[in-house]
Structures are given as C-alpha cells and as structure tokens.
C-alpha cells in the first residue's frame, strides 16, 4: 500500500508511462533477456580460475604441465606469464594495485592463481585440478584490530618500503569543537559496534567474454559491469591498447548492487586468454567464487559517542573507525574520500559539532570495501548515529521517536551546512517521521508493547531517520582514479519524431530504459513509447562513470533532461522559422511551441523534427537536424531522506526474530516513475532485514571464508520479508533539473538500523543494550543470556 503524496503532488503524473508498462519487462517475462552467460560467439572458448586455498602464503612453484596436456585445454596462464607482459597487476578504483594472477604471494583465500582456457566449461574446471601449486604458508591477519600490531605480518610487501598494514588515515569535522561539546554535555553515551562484512550477492555472478581481434587490433569485452566507460579506460591503462580500439558492452545485468563496479582479475584473464588463443574466451564465476573473491561491503569496527544535555538536546557525535579493506584496497569511491561519505554521521540532526576518524587496514581477506547499496559508506554512518540516538534515548528514559523529533533538522534550516562540512540540499524531516508514526500507529504500538511485556513477550519497535548523500559531484571535488564524476547524454530526434537517447550509465534492473524515456518524453511532448534508450555499450554511448551510489537519475537523469531541453530550445528556432515568427514570440505549452496569444498556431516536436531535416531554410545558428548532447556536472550532492519504523517479535526461547511490520516513508525528491521507486524501496527493506538478521561473510582464525555458498551466506526469502507499508513525502532538490534526488540505496541505508533498534527494543526488558549484526537466532539467544557474540574470526 502506498501513501498519498505529501508534497508538491502531480510532478510524477506529468510524465506519462509507456503504454505497455516497463519497457524492459517484455523480454524478461519471455525468458528473452540477454545476460552475459546467454551469449555465445563462434569459436568461443571457456575459462576457469584456479584459486588459492590459503589466506596467506608464498608461492614456491606453479606446475601447469599436466593441465596443458589435457586434450581439451587450449592455454594455461600463470602470474609469471602475465608478469612478462606487464599484466600481473592492475590498478583498483581506489588507486591501489591488485594482483590479476598471483606471482609472489597469495593474500586471501580465493585469490586468483592461474587461468585455464578450454573448449568447454566442464573441461576447464577439470583441468584446474591438474595444476599443482606449492605454497609456503604464512601467518594470516584475519582480525582488523590486530592488523596494526607491531608484530603483524606485512601483507602488502609487494609495495616497496611498506612496513605495516595501514591503508589510510582520514578524518572530518572539528575535533576541538567536538571535544568542547562533549566536555559541556550532561550525558555521554558510548558504544562499540561492528558493521559486519556483507556481500551484495546479485543473483547473476560476474563474468566476461573477451574477443581480441588479432587483425583489427580491436578488443570487444562483454562483461557484467555497472560502469562500462570507466572499465574501458582502465583496460586501456592496464593493457596498453588504445582506448578507441576497446569496446565494452554490458548486456542485461542480473543485479549489481555495487558488486559489479570494480574491474576483477577474471575480466583481465579473459582478455589475456583471448589475446593468447586468438579466439573469444568466456569466463563466468560460480557462486563460491563470487562470494569469496569479489567485492564485499562494510566491515567497519566503530566506536561511537554521542553527547547531549539532560533535557535531550543532542550536542555532538564522534566516531573512531577501523575499516577492514581486505588484501587490496578494491573499494570504489571519490578519491578524496577514502572512507566515502562516512562524515554524514551527523545524520538527520542539528548538532553543534562532530568529528570522525577512520583508519583503513589490510587483512588477509577478499578485497573491496565500498559496495552493496551503501551510498559510499553512508550506510555505516546512518547505522552508527541511529544506534547511538536509540542508546541515548534509553539512557535518558526518553521515547526514541520523540527524542528524534526534538532533534531533527527543521525545514527552515535548509540548505544546511553539517558540522562535518556537507551541504544538505533540502528536507522536511519532522514531516517524514510524523507520517511514519501515523502509518505505524505508533502510540497504539507502544501500548500493545506494554501489554505484551506484562505477559513476558518480546516485542520491539525500532525507529530510524536517515539522511543520504548521493549523486556525487561536482567533478572538481569528486573523481575516481582521476576520472571526474560526470555523465554524458546524447539525444537525437529522428525525422519522423521518434527519439533515441544514449546514456553512459547502465541498468541492472532499475528500469532506466523506462525512466529515462519518460524524462525525455515529458520534456519534448512525446510518448515514452517513442523514445528508446541506448546504454551499456561504450561504442554507442557518451562517456560517464556508470551506475552506482544512486547516481543514475541524480546524474544521468539530469544529463538527459538537460539534453532534452537543449533540443527543445533548438526546436524553438526551427518552429519560429516554420511559423515565420520571432522565437521570442513562442512559448512551450502543452507539448508544443505555440505563438503567444495565438496558441492554435503551434508546432509539435514531430513536425519540427521533419522540418529540421528538410529543405526548409533554417535560421542562423541552426545547422539542421534535431539533436543535442549534455555532460552533467552535479553542482553538489543530493540528500534523500526518510523515516522507518520496524516492528519485530522475538522468541525468548530460541532468539528467532520475526519482522512483523516495516513502515517506510521515503523522500527522494520528485519521483519520475513511482512504481519503480517503490520497487527499489521494497528491495532495500529486504536488504535491511537480510543484513541485520542473517547476511555476514565470516572467517575463521586461519582466514578460511565460512560463507562461501548460499547454504552459509543466508539471504532473506519471501517468508522472512514482510509486506512493506510505504509512505512518501516529496521535497524536490533545489539544484537538480528535475528536482529528483536518487532512490536506489535509501532503504538499504536506512533499514538495518531500524531492524536492530527494534530487536534491541524488544530485548530491553532483559537488560540487553547492544548486540552486533547479524542478529541470528544464536546471536540473539546469546545476548539474552548475557554473553553476546563478539566480532572477529571464529575460533580465533
């Protein structure tokens, strides 16, 4: 059920929907999607990767003779072979380096050691077992809190002069002002918390098909990438191939959620395999490879403190964080922000001061960092502040919703400069929280909870108010590997009045083909059925950084709108020539350029397009045709927000948590396609339940990954996810051309805190103050028994 629009209504209704619903669906419901593994090229070979069974070991030798002798094997590639060509290492999106195939050491379990190319996928796997690798085991670093110990083994001894496992130190905010605020506070609450390592686990794993044409020198790479242009630039940098000879095609993508942002060694192996064999080579991961080697998310050890007056006025927040980045810093975020936008930790509240300090460390675990619908670490920050506010409420004996309400930023404070320097664009936070409380029936829920508690039942009500920071820009402050975060759009209106929009971002289920068609159609008075969207092919689309961090509508959507408005302005000149009037005498109304005062004298885009391609004498400044390009450099971040309420029931005997209700009020600015927006929220709420209750990538003390399949890495199913109750408010972004802010990650960001706050609220009568995610039945049961599970390697 959806709530009614709470803000400027009608903005979405002005953008008509395609007649047949979402444009993407026609192929998917017929099984006619074209995913990476659906593609077969003539003469195609199959690759498979041999991976390290150990978390940390020196490689003494790699013997591939038996594998090469396998009758179905065409090539076996080792790290040493790549090293001869300068391809053994590649840059990561965080300007670190990562081994493509290990040469000196293996640094995490599952690391890539050798690549077999064979004539079918079963034979490639068979041949892996014929490769013999001699390892000399080294002590692994599996607990981030031990990574900086003086005697900790140095993981990245490939880097000259390196003597420790520190990746970076970074801070934001005013330390002195924060200390002063804490010194003056009546109440200070402190909590250690671990946001566990999780994995986006898209249902389609990663893969690539490389086709290096030895004659033309062209490399075509089909791959599961959310960022085809950024990948192409990286391939040019790594392989030395000229960038214009590289074409990256991202076909239908079976979910990304951040997992498909980085360049993975497997993609490079497929390229090397194709270059070596002169045939196309397909490589696809199995599920264990996906979970054990591709980018994880979170793994933040956080110590948070919140300061307040006795009357419940929150004064300041501070945090120190140890960030586990695994063996290579494979995170992707703007390069000035090694901890992403974690400094949004002031959340939705009006604080005097804030300070955060983040230290990144290497460990012998899979590389990564930022990924999984987190909006560049906003997820961790929201969890921290929302847990702290709940703990403060408990300390003060205050209702957590009321405490939030009295400290939320007020609408008149926007644009608001946060204590850590972020400029929030717009918001009405109290309205969102009031709406959530109203949908939930908050007062009745509290009364029900009191009755149940008398009967010994454990019912929890958890509140979370979140503020996100998405749509990264401007480019002068935001780049990834030196590539400014800006996106292009090309729009061509054809002579008969249909249009093709090319964008740099890549859909993975978000419905760009529909939403972007709606954007263009609304600007030009066309039907969305007459606008097709081209994406996911570097030869056919303008440059841009891709789809992640909720940036598609926020950045590419803006580029599409700007391009459409440029087309409209050019159309105005053509229409003026057609009507033999001055362009200034025309106004855009009801999908046409009309003569002021004589609106029947009008020309629609279809008529103008034909004229623009015809022999009509065109006015000065119009060369003919009807097209335009735009590169959108966002003036600033956008700040979606929301208020969530989660109701849980906990079984006191087993510790099992049941999510009974989930109320979510989201404000992502103007909604282009309300159904798609709600679908994204539904997904994120399920993520929140999964991350809070079951999803965690765990390791033992030897660095063995204990979550390498869906039997151990649990995902929420239809029986764990409730039917969400959605509401909305609409506070447009003042600096976005459409007033939109982005929605892709809001619920994943906001939901885990609501779930955990709810469970902790349920356990409050038992004196439980905090337990770390995932709140599995075992974790909850142990918290009830007074011995909560501590973060760190199991058995360590």
């Amino acid at each position: 059920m959806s709530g009614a629009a709470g803000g400027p209504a009608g903005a979405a209704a002005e953008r008509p929907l395609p007649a047949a619903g979402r444009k993407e669906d026609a192929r998917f419901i017929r099984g006619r999607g074209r995913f990476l593994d659906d593609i077969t090229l003539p003469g195609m070979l199959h690759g498979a990767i041999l991976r390290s069974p150990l978390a940390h070991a020196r490689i003494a030798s790699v013997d591939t003779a038996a594998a090469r002798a396998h009758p179905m094997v065409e090539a076996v590639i080792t790290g040493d072979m790549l090293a001869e060509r300068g391809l053994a290492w590649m840059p990561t999106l965080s300007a670190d380096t990562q081994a493509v195939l290990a040469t000196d050491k293996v640094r995490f379990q599952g690391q890539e050691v050798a690549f077999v190319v064979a004539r079918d996928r079963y034979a490639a796997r068979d041949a892996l077992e014929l490769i013999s690798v001699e390892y000399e085991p080294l002590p692994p670093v599996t607990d981030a809190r031990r990574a900086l110990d003086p005697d900790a083994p140095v993981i990245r001894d490939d880097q000259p002069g390196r003597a420790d496992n520190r990746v970076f130190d970074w801070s934001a905010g005013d330390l002195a002002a924060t200390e002063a605020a804490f010194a003056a506070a009546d109440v200070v609450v402190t909590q250690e918390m671990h946001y566990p390592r999780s994995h986006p686990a898209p249902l389609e794993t990663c893969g690539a098909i490389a086709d290096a044409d030895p004659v033309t020198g062209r490399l075509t790479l089909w791959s599961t990438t959310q960022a085809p242009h950024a990948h192409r630039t990286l391939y040019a940098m790594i392989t030395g191939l000229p960038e214009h000879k590289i074409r990256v095609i991202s076909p239908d993508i079976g979910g990304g959620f951040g997992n498909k942002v980085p360049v993975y060694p497997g993609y490079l192996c497929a390229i090397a395999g194709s270059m070596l064999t002169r045939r196309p080579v397909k490589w696809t991961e199995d599920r264990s490879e996906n979970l054990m080697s591709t980018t994880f998310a979170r793994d933040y050890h956080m110590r948070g403190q919140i300061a307040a007056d006795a009357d419940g006025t929150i004064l300041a927040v501070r945090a120190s964080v140890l960030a586990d980045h695994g063996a290579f810093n494979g995170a992707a975020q703007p390069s000035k922000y090694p901890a992403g936008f974690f400094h949004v930790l002031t959340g939705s509240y009006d604080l005097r001061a804030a300070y955060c300090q983040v230290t990144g460390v290497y460990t012998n675990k899979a590389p990564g960092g930022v990924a999984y619908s987190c909006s560049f670490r906003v997820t961790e920050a929201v969890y921290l502040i929302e847990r702290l506010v709940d703990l403060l409420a408990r300390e003060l004996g205050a209702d957590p919703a009321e405490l939030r309400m009295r400290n939320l930023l007020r609408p008149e404070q926007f644009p608001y400069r946060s204590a850590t320097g972020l400029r929030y664009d717009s918001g009405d936070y109290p309205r969102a929280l009031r709406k959530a409380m109203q949908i939930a029936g908050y007062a009745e829920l509290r009364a029900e909870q009191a009755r149940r508690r008398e009967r010994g039942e454990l019912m929890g009500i958890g509140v979370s108010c979140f503020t996100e920071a998405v749509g990264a820009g401007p480019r002068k402050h935001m780049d990834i590997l030196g590539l400014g975060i800006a996106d292009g759009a090309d729009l061509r209106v054809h002579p008969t009045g249909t249009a093709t929009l090319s964008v740099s971002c890549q859909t993975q289920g978000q419905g760009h083909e529909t939403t972007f068609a709606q954007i263009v159609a609304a600007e030009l008075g066309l039907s969305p059925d007459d606008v097709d969207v081209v994406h996911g092919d570097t030869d056919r689309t303008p440059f841009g950084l891709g789809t992640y961090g909720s940036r598609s509508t926020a950045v590419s959507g803006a580029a599409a709108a700007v391009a459409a408005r440029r087309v409209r302005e050019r159309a105005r000149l053509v229409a003026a020539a057609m009507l033999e009037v001055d362009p200034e005498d025309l106004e855009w109304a009801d999908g046409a350029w009309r003569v002021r005062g004589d609106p029947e004298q009008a020309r629609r885009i279809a008529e103008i397009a034909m004229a623009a391609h015809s022999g009509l004498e065109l006015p000065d400044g119009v060369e003919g045709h009807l097209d335009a390009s735009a590169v959108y450099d966002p003036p600033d971040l956008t700040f979606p927000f929301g208020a969530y309420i989660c109701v849980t029931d906990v079984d006191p005997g087993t510790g099992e948590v049941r999510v009974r209700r989930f109320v979510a009020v989201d404000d992502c600015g103007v909604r282009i396609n309300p159904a798609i927006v709600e679908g994204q929220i539904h997904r994120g709420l399920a993520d929140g339940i999964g991350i809070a209750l079951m999803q965690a990538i765990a390791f033992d003390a030897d660095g063995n990954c204990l979550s390498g399949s869906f039997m151990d890495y649990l995902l929420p199913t239809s029986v764990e996810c409730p039917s969400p109750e959605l509401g909305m408010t609409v506070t447009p972004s003042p600096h976005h051309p459409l007033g939109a802010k982005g929605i892709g990650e809001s619920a994943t960001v906001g939901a885990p805190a609501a779930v955990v706050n709810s469970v902790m609220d349920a356990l409050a009568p038992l004196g439980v103050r905090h337990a770390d995610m995932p709140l599995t039945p075992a974790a909850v049961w142990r918290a009830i028994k007074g011995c909560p599970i501590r973060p760190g390697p199991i058995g360590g």
Partner: protein
Amino acid sequence: MNGAERTAEVEPRLLLIHLLRDHLGLTGSHWGCDTSNCGACVVLLDGKPVKSCTVLAAMADGHRVRTVEDLERDGRLDPVQEGFARCHGLQCGFCTPGMMLTASWLLDHDPDPSPAAIREALSGQVCRCTGYENIVRAVRWAAARRGAGPR
C-alpha cells in the same frame, strides 16, 4: 522439451540447466548458485518445479521439461507473465523465469492462493530486487485473471 521431442548425446555428469542453456539454446532458465538455494534454474519436470542445477540431464530422459520459453502460447502471454509485468514483479529479470514457473505450478494446484501460501510456495527461490512483495501481488493478479475466464 516444451512439447517437442529433443535428442542430445551428453556426458553423464551434465546438469539439466547446462543441457538447456548450452546444448538446446534455451537461455531463459538461469544458473545462480550450484547449491539448490536460489531457484534461478527452476523448470517444470513432469509439471513439477525442480532446480535444474541439481538434476542431471540424463535424469530428464523420457520426461517432460517445460521452461519459461513455453509460457507464452500462440502469441498469448500466460496470466502469470502478464501479472509480473503489470505488478512490477521483476526488476533485473534474472530470477523471474523460475519464479513464474513455480507460480504457474502453484496456481494449477491452488487457484486462489493467499499471500501466505504464495510466499510459502516461493520460499525456496531468491529474488534480490523486489523484496518479494510485488511478486506476491503478481501471482494474486494472475490468480484473479485465471479465475476470470478461459486461459
């Protein structure tokens, strides 16, 4: 195979999902996990949903296999397909074929399933995009459409 007899000579170890995808060119069924947990590979074997990543191709010899490619007949969508499109029951589309096949099996046995019955029937399959709510609505829509008239 979707109403037609198909013959293939295969290795004994070949999985049904790979027979479908790599040998018979039916790429609508997807592979997702290897461990029978995700259900992206669900097809109907003699009318019953099975996870084709844990069925050997040889075990399907002499049996009826139905995949997503067979849901639309004579240019007419199955109500389940229509329901998924109308209720935004899919986003990336990867789990969708398996979800639709299980849903169609469910409706054959329970023409008017409750939301709880739908969730139970689909609980062996994973969707990472929808949070399941719109899938439940899609199946309810299909049930209503099936009930309203001949297929």
